[in-house]
């Protein structure tokens, strides 16, 4: 059964459908000779004599569609047959590093943003090399050779040969110094709505996809962990006598990071033995920590002078002369990522080498951690990146917490060992999105101009003490406090934006869209209040005060889609527009309030990611971001009491379900600007769009997340 895109639209009764409203060809995407920045294109593409073509993809596939979109870029320029190509994760090697970065890394919605041109060059280089090889063989000019579906055709003789015929020849060839990329009219995949590659899609629905948790190696064993539930606690002593008598248990050992690994024939046996190990922890004063107390501390900074993040204009004068001033305080809780696949990593420590197999966002960093701990040269550690059962940042951790557990657990063992966290470990052991207490004030004049903007962001740094500190933590401020806030796109006369980063032993980590999870709702919340104070329509007020025409286009799009100016009076409508990771997303949310509950009924979205290489995947990422963020808006919250998280599994750490899903309508505007990311940008505007819609419905401002009406 092969459904076409048209069938697909016709058959989908609850469909969210993308429409391309414009297609402006970006200057840089026109056919052109470009310097080839990839000296070894052969490392990315393997062609066998049987003409089987495999792409070695250097980005992690965690659901965001990186494999499909990057493969589209290669396959289009290579003229490969789309359905027939295979993917493999690229090994950890320098030549697979992110262009301009000393590592392989998937994060910050960077896969397509940083690699689309490189991938096109790789495909174009190999195609050019194949044509040169065939030209020599047929003794004709390369211009007289056509390529299609991985076949070279001599246009003079009509003779055809598969790419595989020349595979040995191109292996010995040097890559061209310049390559010609296709003209837009020649593209067959780029820019076209393309479903997930059928090989990936079918493997996923048949249960054949290998995620990290599915790694199976000869003689491998499994480890379950005992971890201190109080953050900062250290191991005092343990007694495993009883556990060691249980079936399947091979070993109980203390790891260098204050955890205990139970190694067994089966993971279930190891997990069952946890309660048979008697453990004593040194909890000291850490057991007194609570999120309530931390929140009080954070809130106390809102009344104090904090560290400067942006100061310009005369903000005192602006507020003194204001026609109206609006104010808000915001509360954001700690959040767990709760990626669908529990955290795991399999490591085999061999004599002079090691093998690790997992699903990770930071391939190079994890490989290097293993080399460092085992005191091996990095190239002696072989790293295999499997599919990731989602991540949202959790598998891109500079602390490498769960990876280090696995490296220690397998250290000096004869067998490969998979160390697997339970869901309780995942929810309780942190690496949370930080908790924040923020404030915002905006001063406007009678005409609705913004005279001044004051804001404070108080939250623990997520980069301090990590390898990202040197460029993300400066003068006491975390870059993720500022993103989306100090660089907002509104015309504002003066600023006084401050921040502070209190410390605590709670481990933190970026969650999908990072700092924008707190700055998006702040900026788009206070702007909405200012619009009401100015007695203006929220979209009109934004358009009046925005300085970026791309934002304005998106607002006009969602206004039109939602019939904004003639919206139903008995519902709640809210708008928000946020740029993050190089892309801009605007939403109008429609909510229905009933008793003390609410439902997000409909989302109209407009997206400008420069050029949508795969519009269907852009739409899928909006669907993903909306549903993911509704869970955060309505339910999710980690609270700390007596030093430990009070939540432990999906019954008390609530996320969105199919019952929360709104109808979603997406429009893509190809502005032709620089290509941005899509994994994250759909997240930040969802929170304020819903909060603003709730204001429209109830007359009350909701700024404390998760938003509960009663």
């Amino acid at each position: 059964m092969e459904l076409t895109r048209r069938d697909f639209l016709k058959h989908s009764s609850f469909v969210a459908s993308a429409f391309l409203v414009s297609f402006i060809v970006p200057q840089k995407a026109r056919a052109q000779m470009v310097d080839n920045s990839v000296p070894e294109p052969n490392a990315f593409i393997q062609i066998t004599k049987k003409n089987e073509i495999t792409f070695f993809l250097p980005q992690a596939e965690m659901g965001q569609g990186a494999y499909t979109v990057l493969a589209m870029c290669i396959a289009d320029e290579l003229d490969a047959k789309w359905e027939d190509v295979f993917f493999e994760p690229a090994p950890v090697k320098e030549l697979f590093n992110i262009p301009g970065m000393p590592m392989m890394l998937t994060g910050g919605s960077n896969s397509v943003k940083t690699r689309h041109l490189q991938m096109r060059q790789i495909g174009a280089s190999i195609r050019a090399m194949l044509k040169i090889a065939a030209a020599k063989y047929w003794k004709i000019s390369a211009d007289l050779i056509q390529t299609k579906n991985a076949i070279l055709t001599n246009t003079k003789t009509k003779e055809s040969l598969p790419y595989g015929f020349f595979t040995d020849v191109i292996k010995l060839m040097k890559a061209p110094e310049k390559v010609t990329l296709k003209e837009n009219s020649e593209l067959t995949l780029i820019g076209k709505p393309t479903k997930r590659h059928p090989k990936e899609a079918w493997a996923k629905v048949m249960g054949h996809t290998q995620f990290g948790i599915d790694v199976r190696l000869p003689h491998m064993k499994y480890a379950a962990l005992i971890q201190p539930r109080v953050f900062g606690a250290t191991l005092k002593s343990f007694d495993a006598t009883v556990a060691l008598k249980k079936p399947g248990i091979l070993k109980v050992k203390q790891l260098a990071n204050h955890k205990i690994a139970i190694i067994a024939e089966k993971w279930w046996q190891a997990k069952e033995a946890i309660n048979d190990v008697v453990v004593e922890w040194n909890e000291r004063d850490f057991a007194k920590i609570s999120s309530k107390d931390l929140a009080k501390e954070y809130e106390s900074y809102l009344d104090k002078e904090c560290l400067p993040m942006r100061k310009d204009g005369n903000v005192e004068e602006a507020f003194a002369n204001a026609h109206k001033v609006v104010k808000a305080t915001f509360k954001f809780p700690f959040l767990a990522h709760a990626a669908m696949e529990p955290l795991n990593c399999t490591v085999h420590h061999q004599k002079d080498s090691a093998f690790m197999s997992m699903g990770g966002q930071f391939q190079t960093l994890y490989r290097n951690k293993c080399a460092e701990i085992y005191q091996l040269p990095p190239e002696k550690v072989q790293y295999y990146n499997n599919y990731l059962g989602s991540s949202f940042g959790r598998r891109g951790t500079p602390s490498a917490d769960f990876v280090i557990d696995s490296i220690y657990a397998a250290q000096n063992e004869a067998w490969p060992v998979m160390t697997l966290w339970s869901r309780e470990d995942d929810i309780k052991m942190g690496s949370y999105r930080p908790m924040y207490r923020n404030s915002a004030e905006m001063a406007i004049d009678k005409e609705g101009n913004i005279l001044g903007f004051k804001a404070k962001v108080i939250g623990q740094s997520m980069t301090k003490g990590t390898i990202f500190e040197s460029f993300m933590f400066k003068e006491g401020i975390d870059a993720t406090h500022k993103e989306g806030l100090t660089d907002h796109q509104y015309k504002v006369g003066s600023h006084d934006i401050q921040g502070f980063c209190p410390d605590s032993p709670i481990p933190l980590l970026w969650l999908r869209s990072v700092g924008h999870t707190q700055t998006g709702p702040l900026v788009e919340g206070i702007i909405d209040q200012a619009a009401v104070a100015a007695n203006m329509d929220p979209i009109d007020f934004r358009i009046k005060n925005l300085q970026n025409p791309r934002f304005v286009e998106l607002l006009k799009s969602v206004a039109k889609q939602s019939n904004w100016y003639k919206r139903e009076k008995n519902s709640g409508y809210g708008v928000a527009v946020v740029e993050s990771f190089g892309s801009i997303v605007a939403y109008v949310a429609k909510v229905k309030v009933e008793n003390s509950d609410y439902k997000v009924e409909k989302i109209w979205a407009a997206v400008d990611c420069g050029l949508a290489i795969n519009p269907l995947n852009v739409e899928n990422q909006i669907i993903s971001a909306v549903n993911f963020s509704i869970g955060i808006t309505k339910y999710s919250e980690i609270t700390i009491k007596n030093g430990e998280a009070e939540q432990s599994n999906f019954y008390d750490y609530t996320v969105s379900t199919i019952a929360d899903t709104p109808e979603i309508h997406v429009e893509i505007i190809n502005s032709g600007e620089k290509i941005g990311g899509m994994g994250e940008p759909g997240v930040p505007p969802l929170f304020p769009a819903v909060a603003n819609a709730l204001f429209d419905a109830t007359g009350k401002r909701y700024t404390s997340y998760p938003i509960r009406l009663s």
Partner: protein
Amino acid sequence: MIQFTVNDKAYSVDVAEDTPILWILREHLNLTGTKFGCGAAQCGACTVLLGNEAIRSCSTPISEANGKHITTIETTKDKEVKALQYAWVAEDVAQCGYCQPGQIMNAASLLKKNPHPNEAQIIDAMRGNICRCGTYNRIKSAIAIVAKG
């Protein structure tokens, strides 16, 4: 010794009776298509059919499978599962894909009982299956395609 079939193949295992079906599938029979998500019947990633009934295999002891048939995502014969797999690919449902075997098995159980569910019935049947990628809109439309026949 506990005896059962998985996808029409007979197995017998000698394990602790309270071992969850999930871990027998994954660690004894090497059928890794069925996923561990929460271990507490809270997310649905481990859903398989016991007879025609969708069960959370992480919280169902293997003793309950004695003498019974288990169907997992690896089945090549189950009519509803096959139809759903086609619809899933056609509707471009899977993103990370980790929860999808459980979603499909749960949807198969719904369709066995009610071959033509409406949207409200689909939501009601599927609300226990978490998808952190939030592919719910696509899941609904894929099931609706099969439900319409």
